[in-house]
């Protein structure tokens, strides 16, 4: 079943895309899926939007969809909303703030539930973005649940993290708190048409100066008037898809584990069967699974 869906995905079949995201989100056969997918034909720009609830992440995402489509760039949106730690239920209500483009094959919006806890994004988001990359999207916009502080897990899957702030949300000391400012690549002061926006921008710039973070770009943006959107999109266009932290670390571990196992096996090897085994997808899936397990247990210890 999995290989039929992967073939469908590579044919750009949307049903296969939707089904594979469900499978990845449930954490089913991740290793097998990753092994079957292989490397994507081209990298997407993965942009995460984070910030407190109500700051306008979905609204801005909606505007970005329209701007990027006008440039003929295809966009996948992965909108994460919190899941109840008690019932496991979730109300995923981001997509209704985004434009409805039912006939536009270049836009895909998917709502995902994020478990409560430190992460502000859905589990297995790295695999989900990989699935989207194989479909061929130019941009993947990840909307976090909007915890605001300390939600640094997005960094591992995104090429750039955009923090949204709005006027009149706490004084500059709020931003001094450790966490999200340390991992963002750009800041949007959203709702910049509201009174107090200039003061917020000024305070923010002073703070960044003191912190020696003057290279961190700040964009005043109003989704209502459209002001500042062009500059933001231009900045997103300059984002280079980079080696994603987690997958790079995993790859190193993968290679190390494989080499180590090979060495041990080689002592037993008699007829080259072991070397042949290493090219088998089942073997590779087993190694991936071991790596996945090791990675998550190290993460937990930290």
């Amino acid at each position, binding site marked *: 079943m999995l290989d039929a869906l992967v073939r469908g995905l590579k044919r750009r079949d949307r049903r296969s895309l939707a089904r594979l995201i469900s499978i990845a989100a449930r954490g089913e056969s991740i290793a097998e899926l990753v092994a079957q997918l292989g490397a994507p034909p081209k990298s997407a720009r993965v942009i995460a939007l984070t910030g407190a609830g109500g700051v306008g992440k979905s609204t801005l995402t909606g505007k970005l969809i329209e701007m990027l489509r006008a440039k003929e760039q295809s966009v996948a949106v992965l909108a994460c909303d919190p899941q109840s730690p008690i019932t496991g239920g979730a109300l*995923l209500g981001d997509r209704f703030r985004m434009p409805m483009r039912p006939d536009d094959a270049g836009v895909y919006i998917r709502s995902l539930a994020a478990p409560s806890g430190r992460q502000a994004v859905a589990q297995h988001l790295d695999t989900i973005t990989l699935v989207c990359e194989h479909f061929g999207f130019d941009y993947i916009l990840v909307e976090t649940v909007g915890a605001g502080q300390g939600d640094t897990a997005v960094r591992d899957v995104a090429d750039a993290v955009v923090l949204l702030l709005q006027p009149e949300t706490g004084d500059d000391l709020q931003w001094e708190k450790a966490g999200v400012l340390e991992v963002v690549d750009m800041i949007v002061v959203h709702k910049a048409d509201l009174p107090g926006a200039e003061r917020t921008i000024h305070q923010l710039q002073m703070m960044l100066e003191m912190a020696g973070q003057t290279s961190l770009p700040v964009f005043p943006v109003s989704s209502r008037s459209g002001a500042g959107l062009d500059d933001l999109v231009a900045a997103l266009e300059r984002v280079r898809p980079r080696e994603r932290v987690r997958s790079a670390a995993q790859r190193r571990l993968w290679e190390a584990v494989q080499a180590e196992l090979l060495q041990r096996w080689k002592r037993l090897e008699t007829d080259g069967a072991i070397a042949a085994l290493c090219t088998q997808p089942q073997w590779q899936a087993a190694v991936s699974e071991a790596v996945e397990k090791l990675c998550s247990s190290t993460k937990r210890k930290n």
Partner: protein
Amino acid sequence: MSESSSAPIRVVLAKVGLDGHDRGIKVVARALRDAGMHVIYAGLWQTLEAVVTTVADEDADWLGLSLLSGAHMTLVPRLMELLRAADLAHVQVMVGGIIPEADVSKLTDLGVARVFGPGTPMTDIVGFIRERSGAAHA
């Protein structure tokens, strides 16, 4: 850490056309969420085409449509047609709202799983979805 063995049921809830009364659908959304389902709230004033795209992209198991406009006999037949055309015949459809008694069987004949009128206890809706999903997944 621990993955629940059974995947949460994914339900899209939407309102189509010029019907701005969304209290009912929000009450249902909350009840289904509290029952452990993943509810994708697609909101007001949707077109049927947009709803079908949402159901497809969200890989939903259920679609709940709230209709208080009296246009159900125009909208529902077209919806069922669009779902079939999009290869989404496996998605179960429920309708809530103001539906005259005489039209209920017409809707179920079209393939609607169930019509829920005003005053339906939330436990009925939750129970119905669970029961039907259990049968479909088995």
